[in-house]
């Protein structure tokens, strides 16, 4: 069972996320969108989307940073004060995200609300998964102390072993159930990524910072339209 959950499942999730994500981007670009519902409802979205996005994006970046640079992360977390401050910041951010997420869920519930009618099944599944994921994450942070430290010694080696195609799951199989649930759900969300609106995440338009303001597209620039060719068409 652990073999499936911590070896096969992560690979399946990652392969599908990348493969289907690219396929969808290339062949079904029309379906890529944040699917904003702000035009339908504005006030609750403010209290939901802002906390959710700031909270979850920072937390996600912290996870990524620690996974990519475990040495550096270990050094940063080395001091007691720094560890305490970072853990507390993480917990605060998680509460912030959770608050936003709950508002987002409440926003989509009432059967007569406009957003409810712009909600797909996948939206529901996604919000549900996130709710459990953030809740378990918070639970771990509070009840399984100093997760930021043991994350470096358990999950990170496991990630790298997966990357190196040499799966080593010993560091994670002995962890408490809630932690294992959090890990598996994480990959479940990666699996959902190409099949949901989550694709908006990789489309973050950073290039806006340097692209020229005006965009002009030419249909026949560089190809000379000759008199004969226009004559034919008239």
């Amino acid at each position, binding site marked *: 069972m652990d073999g499936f959950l911590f070896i096969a499942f992560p690979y399946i999730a990652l392969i599908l996320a990348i493969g289907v994500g690219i396929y969808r981007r290339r062949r*079904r*670009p*029309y*379906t*890529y*969108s*944040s*699917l*904003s*519902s*702000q*035009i*339908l*409802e*504005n006030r609750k*979205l*403010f209290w939901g*989307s*802002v906390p*959710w*996005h700031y909270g979850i994006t920072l937390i996600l970046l912290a996870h990524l940073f620690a996974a990519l640079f475990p040495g550096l992360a270990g050094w940063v977390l080395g001091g007691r004060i720094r560890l305490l401050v970072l853990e507390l910041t993480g917990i605060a951010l998680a509460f912030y995200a959770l608050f936003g997420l709950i508002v987002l869920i409440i926003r989509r519930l009432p059967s*007569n*609300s*406009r957003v*409810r*009618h*712009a909600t*797909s099944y*996948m939206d529901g599944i996604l919000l549900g998964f996130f709710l459990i994921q953030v809740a378990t994450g918070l639970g771990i942070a509070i009840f399984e102390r100093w997760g930021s430290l043991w994350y470096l010694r358990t999950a990170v080696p496991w990630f790298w072993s997966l990357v190196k195609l040499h799966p080593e799951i010993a560091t994670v199989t002995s962890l408490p159930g809630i932690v294992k649930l959090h890990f598996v759900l994480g990959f479940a969300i990666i699996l959902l990524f190409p*099949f*949901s*609106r989550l*694709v*908006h995440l990789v*489309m973050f*338009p*950073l*290039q*806006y*910072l340097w*692209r020229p*303001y*005006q*965009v*002009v*597209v*030419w*249909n*026949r*620039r560089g*190809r000379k*339209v000759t*008199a004969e*060719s*226009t004559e*034919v*068409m*008239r």
Partner: protein
Amino acid sequence: MNVRSQVSMVFHLDKCIGCHTCSLACKNLWTDRPGTEYMWWNNVETKPGTGYPTLYEDQEQYHGGWVVEDGKLRLKLGSRPTELVNISFNPRLPTLDDYYEPWTYHYKELIEAGPGDDQPVAKPISMITGEEMEIEAGPNWDDDLSGSPIYAENDPNLRKVMNEEERRQFFELQQLVYFYLPRICNHCLNPSCVAACPSGAIYKRGEDGIVLVSQEKCQGWRMCVSGCPYKKVYFNWNTGKAEKCILCYPRLETGQAPACMHSCVGKIRYLGVLLYDADRIEETASKPDAELVDAQREIILDPFDPKIIRKALADGVDQKVVDAAQRSPVYKYVKAWRLALPLHPEWRTLPMLFYVPPLLPVTATLTAQGRHELDPNFFSSLESARMPVRYMASLFTAGDERMVITVYKKLLAGRIFKRAQTVGDIPMERASQALEEAQLTEREVEEIYHLTALAAFEEMFVIPPMLREVAIQMGVDPHEFQEERGAGFVQLPARGL
């Protein structure tokens, strides 16, 4: 200099009867799909009024268009990093309540109602939730002032130019006056919708200047909706993509006028091509308010000037497009006669839809016999106009009243002259005097009269050959699409999961 061509429009407001035929032609053709019900790419609003979406002209609320800061153009929406920071919640987005909640009726209830004491009624139901709803607004809710001065009184332009006392007088019944303002996307030279799009999904077509949203690149960041001061980009809540007026380019490419123009009952609409200098866009849009209209006229080039023609051809403008530019009714109204003005030039998008401001009902006065009379002092009626020239100036010239008066003098002189000629109750010398004062020649008046009152279809819509088929033929193998469902968009425009 870099010569480009732009398909542009003139709407002659004196002729608009406010029938909304244009809006319906457009709706039936383009926006009767789920998610687009509330969109009116073409809408007609009563002025003074709050417009659609409500108060869209109030840029302190919506932050659309451009502003000049330290001599540099920047989006009023904010800097680029600000936009990215606000991307998960756009604080300047109008919501459906600012447009209106689209509805239909439970028509079945009419047919299936059992016998009873009362007439059956079809209850309104929301086209979004499918639930019964209270209709509280519509896309033309303030049509004909809606029997109430509330909408007119809240017009941002009116608030800008009249104090409370003046507004009170304005709303006295005999004084009351309104006109219609049909609006589509202006296909601007300096579009702020394009600039505001973080994905770079909105683009201007080089050959004809039509501004389009790439439905494949759009990621639903909905910044363009806020960026356009005219609120002419709409967000499809069903597909999560922005959509806007496409100037009926599939019709234009096959030589037909856009549907709104083709169907216009008042024959108020003109379409033609203009040549302009693309190198001067930024410079023009950065001018002080008072110089904007003139600068916009300046950037439009004379298609009869041999030097310009040579440069145009060198820059890749086709000879046939130059020919079309020479016959363009838009060129005549905007540049040759200087009768047509852009809407809200102070938003600095350099809109390419121009309006001949309405003379009537602005200056019309009724005598006791109910007859319309021209003031013997020609232009004095402009000072006592029912609608202050100030109001028109805040719509069309960024506040410059002289420019509006110049246009009005020409329009009035034309009327006086034609009246002297056809009715004969004004002596011809006085008519000539009026022409002189308005700096118009008899020939010009005849031409204006012809294009305004008598023009045929081909004179009103001078559609340049777009040569798209040629370009496609050269770039793509036509057989490539034979197996599929035709060229272009072959996927169902369905929402992603």
